[in-house]
C-alpha cells in the first residue's frame, strides 16, 4: 500500500474515532448545565445528584475527546504536509483561533467545574458549566469553518501556487460551513438526548431512582424531538445548498447518474460503479426535483454530466467519488434520523401517559437506541468527507497531491497500527467505565471513588 492510502486510512480512523466522543461532549454539556441551573433555581438536591451523575459520564467521555483531538491537529502536518503548505494561510487561522477562543475556555472552566464544587458559589458553578458548553460548541464552529473551506473554498486567491486568505469574514460566513455547524450542533444535542433517554429507560425498567430518571426522560425526550427535527431541517438545507456548490457530492449521495428534469429519487438502488449507472432501483418519480426545488420539476445534474464538465475544467481524470459509500451512508444517516424523530415522539407519549407499567416492563431493549445517533454521526461524516473526493480542497487540490512526500509506507504503517491498538484498548476501557457508572444510577455521581488504605507496595516481597 502507498502512503496516500495508508494516510487516508489513518486519518479516517482517527477522525471517526474522535467524532465518536465529540458530539456527546457538545450536547451533554448543555444538559448538565440545564440540570445544574434547575438545581440552583429550585434548591432541590435531586437535581444536584442528577447534575453530578450525568456530569460524571460527561467527564469520562470528555477525556477521550480531548486526547484524540490533539492527534487531529498534529496529523495535518504529519501526514498531509503538502496540503498544509498549500492552505496553511487560510486553514491554519481558524484552527489557531479555535484553541485561543474556544478550547481554552472549555478546558480551563471544566477544570474549575470538576474541582470547584466547594470553592465557588452555586450560581457561579452553574455559570461555569454554561461556559464549558459554549466553549465546546464554539470550538465546533471554528473547526467546521476550516472544514467548510475544504468543501467549498471562499475568501482566498491563489498566489505562487498557494492559497492565500483575502477575506476572513467570507471564510467565517461561508454558507457551507454555517450549515455544517447547525447540523453538527443539533446532532450533538440529539446524541446527548438519546444517551440520556437510553440510560433513563434502563433505570426506569430497573425501578432505580425513578423520580430522577423520569425528569431525565422528559428532558431528553423534549430536547431530543426538537433537535432531531432541527438536525433534519439543517441537513436538508445543507443538501439543497450542496447541489449548488458541490453538485458531484450531491449527485453521489443520490446515485443520480444522468441529468434529468424532473429527476426521480432512488429510495434504494443497485450501483454499477464501473459502468457509471444504476442497475436497478426502487424509485419515487420526480421526488428528487421536489426535494431540491420544492416543486415537481427542475433540472438536477447527474454524475456523468458533472464528470464531463470537470474533465473540461480540470483535465482528464475520474472526479466521481465512491458512490456506494455516499449513497448508503446517506440512507443510513437519514434513516437513523427519522427513526429518532419517531422514537422521541413516542417517548413523549409515554411520559404523557405517566409511564404505564405495561410499557415499562417490555422496554429493556430500548437501551440500544443510544447507538442510533452514533450511526448517524459516523455515516454523516463519511458522506461529507468521501463525497468530496478526489479533492482534499474542492476544485483546488487533490488528496493524492496532499500527502507528505517524505514519508515511507513503513513509517505510516507503524503509526497506523499504534493508533489502532491504543484506540481499541481505550475504547474497551471507556465503554466499560461509562456503562459501569451509568448502570449504577445516581449514587455513581455522589459517591466519589474511595481511596485505597495502606501503603503502595513498592518492593516485591518474595513469594507474593
Amino acid at each position: 500500500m502507498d502512503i496516500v492510502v495508508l494516510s487516508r486510512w489513518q486519518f479516517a480512523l482517527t477522525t471517526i474515532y474522535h467524532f465518536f466522543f465529540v458530539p456527546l461532549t457538545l450536547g451533554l454539556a448543555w444538559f448538565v448545565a440545564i440540570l445544574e441551573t434547575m438545581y440552583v433555581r429550585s434548591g432541590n438536591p435531586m437535581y444536584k445528584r442528577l447534575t453530578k451523575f450525568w456530569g460524571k459520564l460527561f467527564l469520562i467521555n470528555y477525556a477521550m475527546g480531548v486526547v484524540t483531538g490533539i492527534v487531529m491537529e498534529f496529523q495535518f502536518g504529519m501526514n498531509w504536509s503538502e496540503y498544509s503548505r498549500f492552505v496553511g494561510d487560510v486553514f491554519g487561522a481558524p484552527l489557531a483561533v479555535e484553541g485561543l477562543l474556544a478550547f481554552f475556555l472549555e478546558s480551563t472552566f471544566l477544570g474549575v467545574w470538576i474541582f470547584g464544587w466547594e470553592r465557588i458559589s452555586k450560581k457561579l458553578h452553574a455559570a461555569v458549566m454554561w461556559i464549558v458548553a459554549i466553549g465546546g460548541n464554539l470550538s465546533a464552529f471554528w473547526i467546521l469553518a476550516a472544514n467548510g473551506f475544504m468543501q467549498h473554498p471562499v475568501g482566498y486567491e491563489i498566489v505562487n501556487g498557494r492559497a492565500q486568505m483575502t477575506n476572513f469574514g467570507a471564510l467565517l460566513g461561508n454558507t457551507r460551513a454555517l450549515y455544517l455547524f447547525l447540523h453538527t450542533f443539533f446532532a450533538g444535542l440529539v446524541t446527548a438526548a438519546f444517551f440520556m433517554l437510553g440510560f433513563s429507560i434502563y433505570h426506569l425498567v430497573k425501578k432505580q431512582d425513578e423520580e430522577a430518571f423520569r425528569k431525565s426522560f422528559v428532558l431528553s425526550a423534549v430536547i431530543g424531538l426538537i433537535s432531531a427535527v432541527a438536525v433534519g431541517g439543517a441537513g436538508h438545507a445543507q443538501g439543497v445548498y450542496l447541489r449548488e456548490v458541490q453538485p458531484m457530492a450531491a449527485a453521489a449521495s443520490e446515485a443520480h447518474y444522468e441529468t434529468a428534469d424532473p429527476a426521480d429519487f432512488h429510495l434504494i438502488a443497485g450501483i454499477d460503479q464501473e459502468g457509471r449507472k444504476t442497475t436497478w432501483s426502487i424509485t419515487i418519480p420526480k421526488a428528487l426535483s421536489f426535494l431540491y426545488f420544492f416543486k415537481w420539476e427542475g433540472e438536477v445534474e447527474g454524475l456523468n454530466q458533472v464528470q464531463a464538465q470537470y474533465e473540461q475544467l480540470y483535465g482528464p481524470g475520474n472526479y466521481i467519488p465512491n458512490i456506494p459509500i455516499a449513497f448508503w451512508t446517506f440512507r443510513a444517516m437519514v434513516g437513523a434520523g427519522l427513526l429518532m424523530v419517531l422514537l422521541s415522539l413516542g417517548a413523549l407519549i409515554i411520559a404523557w401517559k405517566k409511564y404505564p407499567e405495561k410499557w415499562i416492563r417490555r422496554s429493556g431493549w430500548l437501551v440500544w437506541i443510544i447507538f442510533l445517533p452514533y450511526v448517524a454521526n459516523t455515516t454523516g461524516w463519511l458522506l461529507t468527507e468521501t463525497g468530496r473526493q478526489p479533492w482534499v480542497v474542492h476544485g483546488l487540490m487533490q488528496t493524492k497531491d496532499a500527502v507528505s512526500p517524505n514519508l515511507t509506507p513503513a513509517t505510516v504503517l507503524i503509526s497506523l497500527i499504534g493508533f489502532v491498538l491504543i484506540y481499541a484498548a481505550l475504547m474497551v476501557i471507556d465503554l466499560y467505565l461509562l456503562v459501569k457508572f451509568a448502570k449504577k444510577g445516581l449514587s455513581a455521581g455522589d459517591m466519589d471513588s474511595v481511596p485505597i488504605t495502606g501503603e503502595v507496595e513498592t518492593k516485591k516481597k518474595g513469594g507474593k
Partner: protein
Amino acid sequence: MDLNILWFILVAILYAGFFFLEGFDFGVGMLLPSLGRKDVERRAIINTIGPHWDGNEVWLIVAGGATFAAFPQWYATLFSGFYLGFFLLLFALIVRGVGFEFRSKLSAPRWRYGWDWAIAISSFFAAFLLGVVFTNLVRGVPIDGDMQYTGGFFTLLNPISLLGGLAVVMLFLFHGANFLSLKLSEGLRERSHNAARTYFPAALLFALGLFAALLFTPSAFSAKGVLSAILPVLAAAALVVSRVMMGKKKEGWAFICSSLAVVLTVAALFAALFPNVMVSSTDAANSLTIYNASSAPYTLKVISIIAAIMVPVVLAYQVWTYVVFKKRVKADAKNLTY
C-alpha cells in the same frame, strides 16, 4: 518590527507558556509514584494539577495552531519531518490524559498504581521528546531545497538532542517538585522539598551542558552575539536562585525562579533560532526562516488582531483558576475530589 518578527515572538511566548505550565504538570506526573506512598497521597499530588492540566495542555494546541497559521511551511516541514517523534509524543499525551481521568474510577490497587506508572512514564517521554524536538530545531536537521526533511527517525536522536531531551526532563522534575512544595502540605510538602534538592544538580548540569553544546553549533549562539549568550546565563542563574530560595523555605520564590528558568531556557532556544525557524544542516540556504515559511501579511494581520484581544482574556481567566485553587492540597480522604 514587522509582523513576521511579531509572530515569531508570539509563537515563542506560546511555547514558553506551555513549557512553564505543562512543565510542572509533567514534573508532577514523573514524581507521582516516588513521592506518593499511599493512594490518598497520590490523589493529593494529582489534585494539585487536577483543575489545571487540561487548560495547560491547550497551550500546546494553541502553539501548534499558531505555528500552522503564521508559519505553515514550518508546521508542514516540522510535523512531517519529525513524524515518528510526534507520533510518540501523541501516544504519551494520550496515555497521560486518560490516566488522570481513569485512575480513580476503579478501586483495584493494580488498576490505580498501574495508571500512576503510566502517567509517570508518559510524562517522562512527553518531556523528553519535546526537548529532543526543540534542540533539533536549533541544531539543524537535513532539509533539502524544497523544504522537505530528508533524514530519518534516528537522525533526530543525536548526542545534542538527547542532551536537550534530558535537560528538559530534569528541569521539569525540579520545576514540578517546586510546584508541589508550594501546593502540598505536611509530610508531602517535606518530600517535595527533598525532591527539589535531589533533582537540582542534574537540572543545572544538563541545562549547562545543553547551553555549552549549542555554543559550538554554528547556526546558534556563536553567530548571534550578546543576547544569545545572556539568556542561557540568566536561565542558569534563575535555576541557582531557585535552589537557594528552596533552601530558605521560600517556596513561592523558588517556584517563581524555576518558572523563570524554564521560560528563559525556551527564550534562549528561540533566540538561538532567530531568524530561522528550522535550520537545515544540508545547506544553510535551505533553512526555513520567518520570511520564507510564513503566511501572507493579510493572514498575519487577522490573527494578530485576534491574538491581541484574546491572549489577555485567556491569561486573566487562567490566573483566576489558580486563585480559586490557591489553597494547599491535603492528603486527607474526606476533602479530596476523587
